[in-house]
């Protein structure tokens, strides 16, 4: 693959663009004209775990970009439908890869065109300093699996390309075990952080005192695991162990849902907790705690607007 378009240049999109520009012709589709101008003029700088300068072609209209073989759709799930609508009738031969949280991002894209699709989840993280500078913080992997019209081989090819650019990636026959591990993890950790105002830190794994937060975290994860089991998904990683491991590093991470609430923006709770609650309903599993978290986050969003 010689030509790649990253659609959406937040943290994740910028990290993909900055790295992949080292190994392919790279274009970026963004929403704001001034963002496109800044990227075209100054390129994209990556600091932190990678130190890179990338030249990219940026525009707000797909019409103005070269035709890519791979499109990585890296916007937030709340913008996904709008972004997919802008891609309609463009680049019919490209493979489109989603990296959104939750379930069903590929289905949203599928409604807007006949592209071949790959699904992925990413665990890498960073901090966006401005329109042309992103810091690479956690070098954890992106996991890729086939969706409509693609195979494991397509997923392998993209994973290889991503690895050659300096990021971590792995391909799977079936993404769901990995996707669901992250779903249960995020549905728990992000909503607890958003409602309490706490960063994801050691308190999320504490279970000594009766009011320690770890009890709630574990109960939410148990509900999520029951939904996965009833849906026939064998989780790739245990979400509670992911939680313990992540908080043992001693770092305090502020999940995006926390940041969104603080900034008065819409959160991804519909795509994350919403996906889990819908799947639970389909599987006939009760998830009263996740429903509680969903209602509280939606209400908190409403109060902030």
């Amino acid at each position, binding site marked *: 693959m010689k030509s790649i378009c990253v659609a959406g240049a937040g943290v994740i999109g910028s990290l993909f663009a900055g790295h992949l520009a080292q190994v392919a012709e790279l274009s970026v589709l963004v929403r704001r004209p001034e963002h496109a101008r800044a990227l075209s003029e100054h390129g994209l700088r990556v600091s932190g775990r990678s130190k890179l300068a990338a030249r990219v072609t940026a525009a707000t209209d797909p019409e103005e970009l070269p035709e890519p073989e791979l499109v990585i759709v890296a916007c937030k799930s709340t913008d996904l439908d709008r972004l997919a609508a802008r891609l309609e009738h463009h680049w019919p031969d490209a493979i489109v890869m989603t990296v959104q949280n939750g379930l069903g991002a590929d289905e949203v894209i599928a409604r807007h065109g006949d592209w071949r699709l790959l699904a992925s989840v990413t665990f890498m993280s960073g901090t966006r300093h401005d329109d042309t500078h992103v810091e690479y913080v956690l070098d954890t992997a992106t996991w890729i699996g086939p969706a409509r019209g693609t195979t494991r081989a397509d997923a392998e090819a993209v994973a290889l390309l991503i690895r050659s650019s300096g990021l971590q990636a792995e391909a799977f026959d079936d993404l769901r075990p990995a996707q669901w591990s992250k779903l249960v993890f995020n549905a728990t950790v992000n909503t*607890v952080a958003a*409602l*309490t*105002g*706490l960063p994801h830190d050691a*308190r999320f794994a504490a279970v000594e005192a*009766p*009011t*320690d*937060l770890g*009890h*709630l975290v574990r*109960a939410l994860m148990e509900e999520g695991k029951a939904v996965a089991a009833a849906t026939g998904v064998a989780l790739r990683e245990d979400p509670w162990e992911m939680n313990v491991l992540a908080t043992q590093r001693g770092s305090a991470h502020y999940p995006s849902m926390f940041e969104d609430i603080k900034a008065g923006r819409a959160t991804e709770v519909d795509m994350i907790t919403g996906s889990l609650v819908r799947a639970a309903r389909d599987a006939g599993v009760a998830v*009263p*705690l996740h*429903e*509680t978290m969903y*209602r*509280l986050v*939606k*209400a*908190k969003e*409403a*109060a*902030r607007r």
Partner: protein
Amino acid sequence: MRVCVVGCGAVGSLFAANLATLEDVEVWAFDVSREHVDAINRDGLRLTGAGDVVGRPHATSDAAELPACDFGIVATKAMHTEPAIRAVAAAFADGCVATVQNGLGNEEAIARHVERVIRGTTFPAGKVTAPGVVQWDVKGETTLGPFEERPAPAERIAELADACTRAGMPASAVADARGPQWRKVIFNAATNPLGALTGLTHGRICERLDLRRLASTLVDEGRAVAEAQGIVLDADPEELIDYAARPDVAYDHKASMLQDVEAHRSTEVDYLNGGIVGFGRRLGVPTPAHEAIWALVKGMEAAWAQ
């Protein structure tokens, strides 16, 4: 009769100012705020809003100044009960002490320091607007009854209820005061933390059907814990929730727990949701929703403490 109000915030002031208007009652107001105490001693304790009253209680921040009292009315926030009653207990060596506080566990804390305890629940509410001045927002009933483990005699309870009623704070003495107390605890535990966690007023919580249903889940869990103790609620907390949501009642009211959260003060969640969870555990009644809400509010408190 000599009465000491312990903790002269909004609710304590309603009792102190009204009781001080009676000729046969001498009222003392004990409060940690020097400013408030000085203002009361200088200008009297003034109520505005639902009633215009100026009472002239003796106010002090020094427990040693308190004379022996016939009655105590404890009206601090629940987390201050223990230190407050410990400080003033000597004044009630021969007296009876009533709690009119929110939550569960206040009677037990008081009974560790005094012999005769009155279980009380009060619905009037207001807020301190300046030292010595309290806005009286809501009038309401007070119920007083014996605390079973260390009961005050029925005739003494009736005496206090009569004085409150004559002073314009209608109160009734009952044999079992747990029904009204649990109704109010369940109401508070089902609604206050939802306001605290979301930032919504009581009325807006009730307008969101899914949140209103969450409140009902919390009510149901609380009711099951009450029933397991043989407590008969004196009315349905659900009715109180819907009544309070009316525009002419408390639609725009920010629950005290939300006010605490906005001011980064510790909340009464340990005595509301935590109290229900504690009783539930001892009785083998599951309370998963209260546990979750309790943990989230404690998480909020931890977030601003760091």
